[in-house]
């Protein structure tokens, strides 16, 4: 069983296409070409990770898909529509815990469902909240405020909140970067299980090669600036994946390959 085999949530209209993306910034009069003709696609129901040297423009790419930034050249399309602003059909999980401190865990998860754009009846909201509380192991914290939660739990709330509005596409920018190694591995397993049951189209940015392989169907390796796609690597490791998967020869070999690629990009950048 592979992740793409039976995409039940995703339809063709969820394909994310980065098409010839170019982006530059001007800093102190200097022209900084960050992205240059960067193209790749995330197929419906597919989980794709993006790795690349620090500062190569990963967050910029994700922000384009989210609708916070627009490209100078090329376009980002979701389905057939060009992205031109944030939309609840594209859920975002941020690197920092962007959860609402004045709302309880349950209210945080419910937040999107109470907005005009995707309001649901109360009973339905309750079901959805319960479902994600369970899925994220947060049942007993439903009425707790974020200040009472650990970093890992806060990020689970953010993920649950993003899932709750039933977005067609999930965009995640290094959501586990601030977590310790053990929590991080558990979160990866949790996200993997969630992906297996929900099968959403997901774009996941990370610095960790191991995380990328563990979670993904494919890994997009970006080059150093000006950034384009260096290589796209298929991860043909069957799901469900577990802690042991990380030790399998296939996993280790992929990891070695990707680390090699990243290293060569970083060296190039230093030169």
């Amino acid at each position, binding site marked *: 069983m592979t992740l793409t085999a039976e995409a039940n949530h995703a339809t063709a209209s969820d394909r994310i296409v980065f098409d010839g993306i170019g982006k530059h910034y001007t800093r102190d009069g200097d022209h900084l070409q960050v992205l240059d003709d960067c193209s790749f696609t995330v197929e419906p129901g597919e989980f794709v990770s993006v790795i690349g040297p620090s500062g190569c423009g990963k967050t910029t790419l994700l922000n384009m898909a*989210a*609708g*916070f930034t627009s490209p100078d050249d090329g376009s980002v399309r979701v389905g057939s529509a060009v992205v031109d602003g*944030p*939309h*609840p059909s*594209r*859920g*975002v999980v*941020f690197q*920092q815990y*962007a*959860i*609402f*401190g*004045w*709302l309880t865990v349950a209210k945080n998860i419910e*937040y*999107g469902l109470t*907005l*005009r*754009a*995707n309001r649901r009846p109360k009973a339905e909201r309750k079901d959805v909240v319960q479902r994600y509380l*369970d*899925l*994220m*192991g947060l*049942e*007993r*914290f439903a009425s*707790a*405020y*974020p*200040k*009472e*939660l650990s970093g890992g739990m806060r990020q*689970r709330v*953010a993920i649950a*909140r*993003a899932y709750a*509005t039933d977005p067609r596409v999930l965009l995640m920018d290094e959501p586990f970067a601030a977590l310790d190694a053990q929590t991080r591995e*558990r979160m990866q*397993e*949790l996200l993997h*299980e969630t992906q297996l*049951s929900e099968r959403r189209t997901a774009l996941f940015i990370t610095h960790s090669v191991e995380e990328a392989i563990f979670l993904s169907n494919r890994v997009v390796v970006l080059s150093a600036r000006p950034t384009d796609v260096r290589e796209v690597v298929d991860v043909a490791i069957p799901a469900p994946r577990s802690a042991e998967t990380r030790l399998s020869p296939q996993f280790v070999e992929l990891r070695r390959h990707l680390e090699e690629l990243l290293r060569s990009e970083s060296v190039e950048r230093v030169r």
Partner: protein
Amino acid sequence: MTTTTVARSAPRRRSPASGSLSGTTRRVGLGILGAALAIGVWYLVSVSGIVSGRGIPRPDEVVSAGRILFTEQDLLFDVRVSMTRVCIGVTVGSLLALPIGFLLAWYPTLRAMAEPLVNFFRALPPIALVPLAIVYIGIGEDARISILVYASFFAAVIVLFEGISSIDPLLVRAARVLGANRWEVFARTVVPASIPHLFTAVRVALGVSWATVVAAELVAAQRGLGAAVQDAATFYRIPDMFVGIAMIGFAALFMDLVLKLVQSRLTTWQEKTR
């Protein structure tokens, strides 16, 4: 599913009543001890006669003066008058500051234009405007209230717009990707995130107003705590002055305490940095 791998201990809620009871008792005890020591020192100083001239009254003289003031001269009325003035000033000033604070935080151009002005008027001691207010508005209640509104407004507006502009823009983004429109971003993200700043603003306004009301009453008022102290001074009723000054302190403390209590009730969610 193997979600059970995730830790699931119930959140530990530190209830201030049970968990730290001994700590609280200790703190209150030490506070009382400190106050008792201060009164003791006061007593010694007053009986030693090292203060030349009229000397200072003993604590017990002040207490009995206070008893007479409250029973026969209705000092409570002066307390109420001063507190009412402050409450009106702070309420009106903060209510005016609220929309302005949001506007300034929301529109950077507006803020850039208004910031030097706001800073100037806040730096200006409100009491400096008393003569001006007397000339334009007269010596009535309106003049005093106007000064207090002025003082509260500028104290509150600065705290508010600095607080509101410091709200994490990530929260606004998070609300937008969840589908919030502009109004919902404002009403359901910016406003709740601003509540702690609103309380800080009101507390700062309260402090400034209290200082201002007393000063204003000292120079131009028939009733109020400042007037009571001034009155006592005119007739050299020194213990009465002490009573008045002590009441000014207690009333200020009381109002701040009430506000603190309301704040801790309404912002239990807030992360304590202390």
